[in-house]
Every structure is written in C-alpha cells, then in structure tokens.
C-alpha cells in the first residue's frame, strides 16, 4: 500500500499490548505519564493540555484545556467528576471501540490524569449498550489497575448506555448516568459548572482522553506541532461503504479526504466511480468529489459546511441514490429524537415523511422548498445538536446532488 502518512498517537499501542494485561501496558511505559502528571501541580497539567491546543474528538471540537480550566478553578465543590463519553452512536464510527477493546488502560490513564488536573476523585465511563465487549474490557482493566494501586484515590466506574443515540449529547448522558430518561438539559449552566448530580463535571470523548498520556509524556509543544495548527494532533478515521479498505487509520490532521479515501482506502470497490462521502456519521454533510481536497481538520471542514464529527468516512459509489440514502438517515433521526423540543420532535418526523414522499415520486418543488425551510428552522431552534444537525444530510445533498431530487419531483 502506497500510504505512508499514518501516524499513531491514540493507537500507538493498539495491537502491540495485550489489552487484558496491565503489566504489558506498564512495560511499554504505560502509566508513566500519570506518575509524571501527579508530580506536577494540577494547574500546570491543565496549562500543558491547554498549550497542546488539543480539541475534543467527540464532534464539537471544543478546546480541551479550556474546558478543564473552567472546572479546575472551582475550589468550593465537595465533589467533581471526570466523565468519559463512550456512547459512539454515529453510524459508521468504531474508533472508540478500538481504544476500549485494544488499549483500555490508555483511556483509564488519560482519565486519571484529568482527575488530578481538575481535582476529581471519581470518574464514570458511559459506554454504549451495543458494546458489551468494550464494557467488559474496561471493567477488567479498571479492577486490575485499582488492585495494583495504580489509580491511587481515583475511583472509576463503567455505566452502560441502553441504545439511545441522544445520550451521546453530554447533558443527556449525564441525565442517563443519574438514572433518568436521556433528555438534554438547557444550557447554561454547562456541565463544567453544574454537571453530574449538579457537581462540576468535565465530559470528554474516549479519543480525547486517549491522547492525554502522550501529551504529558512528550510535552505540549510536540503535540501542537503535529498536523494542522488549529486542530493539532492526529485523528482516527473509520472507513465504511463502497471503499476497498474498510478499516481504520490514524493520520495527522493535515491530510485530505482524498488521501484517506483513495491513497489509504484504495478507492472504490469494483472499479466503480466515486459519487459521495459522508464524514462524521449520520449528522455529517455529504459531499461530492470536487471537495475531496479539503484538509480534514475541524476548521477546514467547517468552512465547507461540513463537520469533522467523529471521523466516520462513509463512501458511496456512482450507483447510490442520495434520496434513498437520506431517507434512511432521516428515519434514524425520527427514531432517535428524544421528543423534548418541538423543532426536533416534529421536524425529524416531517423530514422523514418528506423523504418518503420524494422517494415515492409523490412530491413537488413546493414540498422540497418547505422541507428546506423546516431544515433551517431546526438548525436554529432545536434544543441540542441532534435536532440542529439532523437536517444536514438532506441540506448538503439538495445542494450538491440536486439531480437525484429533481428526477423524483
């Protein structure tokens, strides 16, 4: 394979350590970063993470060090929490599973460092219910690390999701850990101030935490110098759909989608032509070949109306009909909307019904225009990211693949 841009930070030990062996991880230098961090002042750890410029890998790209600093500086809380978002619900994404099942100790180490940095002695990993093997790997690794005294006074617990995509939204996730329906909260207050059981809480993605040990070990400057300046480091991508190599790859954030799909991914199956790619899961945009030379960093993607999201890369060949694909995606959101806010509850339902109408050849240009208006209303008024982003596949395909719609009207 002529692809030499792979660079592993998150997955540097993946496949090289026995996931069930703490010794193995320790022998590879594992938990050295935790020792180093514990010898530092908590605020210095936060500063180091800030200086690295790492931004969240769970979808929203928020600067991690800044998030930690809000919670770290709160001094009058009797309890703070470190929460890991392992809900990984975006279709096409399986990167967090690789970490949890391949290098569970690296995630645990990252969370323990976060605990020291913000002054929390308790952490939760909220892992989706679809991943019983990940939960098992984590529980075993935590029990072993605790038994060996590696975690000190940091207590860590795994909580299972129960098949609800919205619980990946951080406040819905918190509601779910508390034992309630997973409905997002109104913000502010943000979790950093009032999160789990009303206490200051940081919520980060699995991949975000898994980067932390290497940052502490090698220093912020090292990390900040990798990939794109505004979104440094690497990103793990998971490929699916009509691409030859349906697998994962970790690359610096300055590679392009074209490199990922054609150089690494080997192009399209059966010698067919490329038609479209969706990046970031069901809530991501769907784009044509002309935009493939965009670098994959967060801001470059945002500039073309895309989200890097989770790093799912779902490839579609020339035979795929965007109306059929988007109908499937709208069904997903109609099912996963929690129903708390009206724009999302009604909007996802109407968009799905609208796509069915188009697919059946029963819609006209007016129907399409009404759906576009509805989509903009959802973008602006839905309570959480689910309803705001749900129309994205529809909106981007209307824009870039208009012919697929026109021929059904």
């Amino acid at each position, binding site marked *: 394979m002529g692809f030499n841009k792979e660079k592993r930070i998150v997955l540097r030990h993946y496949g090289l350590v026995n996931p069930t062996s703490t010794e193995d991880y320790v022998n590879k230098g594992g938990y050295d970063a935790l020792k180093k961090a514990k010898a530092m002042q908590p605020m210095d750890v936060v500063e180091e993470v800030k200086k690295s410029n790492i931004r969240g890998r769970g979808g929203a790209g928020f600067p991690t060090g800044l998030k930690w600093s809000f919670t770290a500086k709160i001094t009058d809380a009797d309890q703070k929490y470190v929460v890991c978002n392992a809900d990984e619900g975006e*279709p096409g994404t399986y990167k967090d599973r690789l970490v949890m099942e391949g290098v569970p100790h690296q995630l645990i180490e990252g969370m323990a460092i976060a605990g020291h940095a913000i002054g929390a002695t308790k952490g939760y990993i909220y892992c989706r219910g679809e991943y019983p093997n990940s939960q098992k790997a984590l529980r075993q690794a935590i029990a072993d690390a605790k038994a060996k005294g590696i975690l000190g006074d940091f207590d860590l617990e795994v909580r299972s999701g*129960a098949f*609800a995509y919205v619980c990946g939204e951080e406040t819905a996730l918190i509601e779910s*850990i508390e034992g309630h329906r997973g409905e997002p909260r109104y913000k502010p207050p943000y979790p950093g101030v009032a999160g789990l059981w009303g206490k200051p809480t940081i919520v980060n993605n699995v991949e975000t935490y898994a980067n932390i040990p290497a940052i502490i070990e090698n220093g912020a400057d090292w990390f900040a110098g990798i990939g794109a300046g505004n979104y440094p480091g690497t990103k793990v991508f998971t490929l699916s759909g009509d691409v030859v190599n349906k697998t994962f790859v970790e690359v610096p954030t300055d590679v392009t989608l074209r490199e990922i799909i054609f150089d690494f991914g080997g192009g399209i199956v059966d010698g067919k032509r490329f038609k479209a790619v969706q990046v970031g899961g069901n809530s991501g945009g769907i784009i044509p070949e002309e935009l493939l030379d965009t670098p994959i960093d967060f801001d470059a993607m945002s500039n073309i109306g895309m989200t890097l999201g989770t790093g799912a890369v779902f490839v579609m060949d020339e035979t795929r009909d965007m109306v059929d694909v988007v109908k499937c995606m709208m069904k997903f959101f109609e099912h996963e909307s929690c129903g708390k806010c009206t724009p999302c509850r009604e909007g996802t339902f109407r968009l799905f019904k609208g796509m069915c109408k188009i697919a059946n050849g029963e819609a006209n240009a007016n129907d399409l225009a009404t759906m576009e208006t509805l989509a903009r209303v959802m973008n602006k008024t839905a309570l959480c990211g689910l309803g705001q982003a749900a129309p994205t596949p529809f909106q981007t395909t209307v824009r870039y693949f208009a012919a697929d719609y026109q021929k059904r009207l």
Partner: protein
Amino acid sequence: MTLDAIISQYRDVEGGLIEALHAIDNEYRCIPESALSKLAEAFDVPVAKVYGVATFYAKFKVGERGSNLIRVCESAPCHNAGAALVLAAIESNLGIKAGETTADGRFTLELTECVGCCNESPTITINEVPYTKLTPEKVPELLSKFR
C-alpha cells in the same frame, strides 16, 4: 435470580434505576410488567417515572421477548450493504415481521441502529453477539443454530 433479588442489589446505587433495568434485562431479556411497581417502590419514585425511563431506551422492552433476540442494523452503511434483503430473509425464515415474536417464543426480531461493525456490513446481532457480512443465503443456516 428473582426480580426482588436483582433490584435489591441496586437500590442504594446512585442512578441505580437504569443499572437495575440493565440487570433485569440481562436476566430476562425484557422488563416484565411486574418489575415496574417493584422498581418504583425500591427507588421511591412513581411507577410512571419507571415506565418513562424503561420505555425511553430501545434496549429495554417492557413486556415480553422471545428467548433469542435478533436485531437487524438499519443504519446507512448497513442499509447500503443490503440490510433490507437480510431482514426480508429473516422475516420469511421466521414467519414474523420486525417487532414481533415467533409463536413458539423462540425468536424476537427487532430493528436497531449502528452497532459499530460497519466495516463488515450488513450486521445483525443475536443475543448481543454481532454476525457480520451477512447475505440472505446465509440466514437459514445461522438461524438454525438457535432453533
């Protein structure tokens, strides 16, 4: 384990209602109706609240399920890889539609969203174990292992 025995393990756990639902689901593959009032009492909340929580999550089914639970992923990567054909093959093999249970109580068939095996779509799970790269032709043999 009885419902009471399961529930009593979680009544003092913070956020234990969902943990208890998981434990009941692990044991029974569903949430028996009779569990609702027991949970309400243990966690000191109205039955309506327990019902609201249990029915929010697609993993839980208040009522009954068959002894083997088949879930067919219908998210886009599996959809494009032919999930509908696999679903049709399962439906015709079992003689039921998605959402139903066979008369002998052996199988319940449900639809689900991405289970994280999209590199090997289409995917179904049987009793939470993924079976990937399925084709309609492979369905009869796979299901026969659970008969």
